[in-house]
């Protein structure tokens, strides 16, 4: 089993090497095959590890696959190894499974791009890094994966770097991530200072002994790590890079900015569930930030006109749900939503990509419409994805969202539920706004593009179908309201049991009846359905209503359309002072002082030379005179000293 575990990471890395070094010479077809096979191998390996784990008893479901000692520095012994436990295997399956479908889709999407091999190299590198992140057995290895995925995100967002906006977006993503990473690093250092090791086994086993519940150290650690998570997972206040990241190719948006990288923060919080369970303050912060972000981002998504931006804000909002779940102690539910979200969000992005592809890079939904007859598969799968994300029974989104809402109420409080439910309503509304504006109604497509609109090739539509199937049945591993229907939760039990023990020790477990849960589910379904109906009324029945709203409340509309001007605020508060400071330091320090010193030395030498060259008269007799004077001087010295 050891070798198989390593294969999960090494297969994509092999793809990176092959495509990276030989890509240009191998030709597009072979490059695509290599890249997809690498991910396929990783998926099979992950599946084998999963099967192995399932066969073990619950207590033993944590296999440590040691690698090599990476940094032996005195007291610090950092080793590089893999931890195979339910959480990491589930994540690995999601990453490789969804990743495989996206790789296959990319073969079609990027077919006309000349940088084909570079694209697949970075995509494989990203997958390898993400797998490293989730399979790591120590915080330091996690951090290596963390940084590598940030690098790949930068490379892929700025894939078409000749476009200034893409290059700027890549920079922005990396820099905002970096800001979060400062917090993450300080948290890591604090962990090392407290535990003397970075390994999960060392930290989590002795957490109870070395830290006191609710104490300052564990709160500090968890809050600092969470700051890193807000950067990576695009929550308030560090979400600003994700909408800009839509500059990258759409499969990249699907893989990195929907299914996998942005979920790394959630994974990290879930992995550190013991630490978070011991810090109720941090849990509250996590839940607050998650809920607030869910609502905030959903509200921005209501009015955006770029199809990918709507999906981006939707992603930010849904990750807020995941953090809300973790924040109230339902870690398994958070991870479950991570998985279902990966399915339907990747599906939605790939469908959007299909539309964009056939409309020759048109992304504005005001110039779409009436596409459902021309692109039936894309339309059908997009609707399935929208139903899933809106939380309609019995699709995957319902299973996970319903559980989140329930736990928000039962383990949290009514306010959490209200915020989450409101955001769910908004989600349904904006998703079906997309459906109606893109696929229904009269075609507002550009005249020249009209005749060429066609369904995408099967290499792109087959992954759509695959993801659609997953969006339907993917939630059935943990169906709410059904007794003993929570296979997913039971599988993840061993990972989260210690954390849940701490939490339930604090809070008296409420015994709530099934009836109340059923009622809340129905209310949630009703809210989602009403969102869909409202969207139908606003965009199909009375198309002028939405525009009327916009005209009636112009200031509010402009504010939300401009994303509450957060980017502009950050620019004024941080970016411009930073620029000014950099300019000041450059002029005052680098140019004036350092360059001045170096140039000054040269200038002095030059002036001295100017003076001394006057000695070269070329006049032989003056030389002779100089020699004679020298002799006299020596003589005098010898006679009189």
């Amino acid at each position: 089993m050891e070798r198989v575990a390593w294969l999960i990471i090494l297969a994509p890395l092999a793809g990176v090497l092959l495509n990276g070094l030989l890509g240009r010479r191998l030709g597009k077809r072979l490059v695509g095959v290599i890249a997809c096979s690498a991910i396929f191998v990783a998926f099979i390996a992950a599946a084998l590890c999963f099967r192995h784990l399932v066969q073990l008893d619950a207590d033993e479901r944590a296999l440590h696959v040691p690698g090599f000692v990476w940094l032996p520095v005195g007291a610090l012994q950092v080793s590089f190894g893999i931890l195979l436990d339910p959480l990491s295997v589930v994540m690995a399956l999601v990453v490789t499974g969804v990743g495989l479908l996206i790789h296959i889709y990319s073969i079609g999407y990027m077919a006309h791009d000349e940088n084909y091999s570079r694209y697949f190299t970075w995509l494989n590198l990203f997958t390898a890094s993400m797998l490293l992140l989730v399979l790591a057995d120590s915080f330091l290895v996690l951090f290596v994966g963390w940084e590598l995925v940030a690098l790949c995100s930068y490379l892929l967002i700025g894939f078409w770097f000749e476009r200034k906006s893409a290059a700027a977006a890549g920079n922005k993503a990396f820099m905002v991530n970096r800001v979060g990473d400062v917090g993450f690093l300080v948290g890591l250092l604090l962990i090392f200072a407290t535990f003397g090791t970075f390994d999960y086994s060392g930290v989590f086993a002795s957490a109870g002994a070395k830290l006191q519940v609710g104490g300052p150290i564990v709160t500090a650690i968890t809050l600092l790590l969470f700051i890193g998570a807000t950067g990576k997972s695009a929550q308030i206040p560090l979400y600003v890079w994700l909408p800009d990241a839509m500059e990258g190719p759409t499969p990249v948006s699907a893989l990195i900015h929907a299914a996998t990288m942005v979920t790394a923060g959630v994974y990290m919080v879930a992995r550190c569930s013991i630490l978070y369970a011991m810090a109720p303050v941090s849990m509250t912060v996590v839940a607050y930030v998650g809920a607030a972000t869910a609502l905030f981002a959903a509200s921005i998504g209501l009015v955006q006109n770029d199809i990918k931006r709507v999906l981006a804000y939707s992603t930010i909002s849904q990750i807020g749900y995941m953090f809300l779940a973790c924040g109230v102690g339902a870690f398994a539910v958070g991870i479950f939503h991570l998985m279902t979200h990966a399915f339907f969000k990747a599906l939605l992005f790939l469908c959007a990509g299909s539309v964009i592809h056939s409309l020759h890079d048109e992304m504005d939904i005001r110039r779409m419409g009436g596409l459902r007859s021309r692109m039936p598969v894309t339309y059908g799968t997009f609707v399935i994805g929208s139903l899933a994300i809106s939380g309609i029974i019995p699709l995957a989104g319902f299973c996970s969202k319903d559980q989140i809402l329930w736990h928000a109420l039962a383990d949290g409080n009514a306010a959490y539920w209200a915020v989450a439910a409101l955001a769910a309503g908004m989600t349904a509304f904006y998703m079906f706004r997309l459906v109606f504006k893109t696929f229904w109604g009269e075609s507002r497509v550009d005249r020249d593009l009209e005749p060429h609109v066609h369904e995408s090739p099967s290499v792109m539509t087959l992954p759509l179908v695959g993801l659609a199937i997953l969006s339907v049945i993917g939630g059935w591993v943990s169906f709410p309201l059904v007794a003993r229907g929570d296979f997913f939760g039971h599988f993840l039990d061993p990972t989260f049991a210690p954390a849940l023990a701490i939490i339930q020790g604090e809070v008296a477990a409420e015994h709530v009846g099934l009836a109340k849960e059923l009622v809340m589910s129905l209310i949630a379904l009703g809210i989602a359905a009403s969102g869909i109906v409202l969207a139908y009324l606003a965009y199909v029945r009375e198309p002028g209503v939405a525009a009327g709203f916009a005209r009636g409340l112009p200031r509010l509309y402009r504010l939300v359309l401009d994303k509450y001007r957060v980017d502009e605020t950050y620019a004024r508060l941080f970016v411009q002072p930073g620029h000014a400071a950099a300019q000041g330091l450059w002029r005052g320090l680098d140019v004036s002082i350092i360059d001045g010193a170096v140039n000054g030395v040269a200038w002095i030498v030059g002036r001295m030379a100017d003076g001394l060259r006057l000695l070269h008269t070329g006049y032989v007799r003056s030389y002779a005179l100089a020699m004679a004077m020298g002799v006299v001087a020596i003589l005098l010295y010898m006679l009189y000293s």
Partner: protein
Amino acid sequence: MAAIPTSHYIMLSAALFAVGVLGVLIRRNAIVIFLAIELMLNAVNLAFVAMARHMGPVATKMGGATGLVDAMQGQVFVIFVLAVAGAEVAVGLAIIVALFRHKRTLDVDEVNLMKW
């Protein structure tokens, strides 16, 4: 007849040397400068020989017999100087001839290509 005191020789040598130095510094003709250099060399020769005699007889062993002979160091050094002077004259005159072929003049003030 009393011997000429050594100091007279030294003073003469110094005077000759000074004249030589002045010649080098003041004259413009290359060959005259050469003359002045030779003058300096010969002044030094004179000083050597005078000092050699001044050092007086010294006990010396020669082929088994021991006797008193005037010190030889000064004289030998003069021979060296003469030889070197000769070689130097050969080289220097060659340079002057080459210079004349280029510039058609013996005026050292004209040789100022190394001026800044």
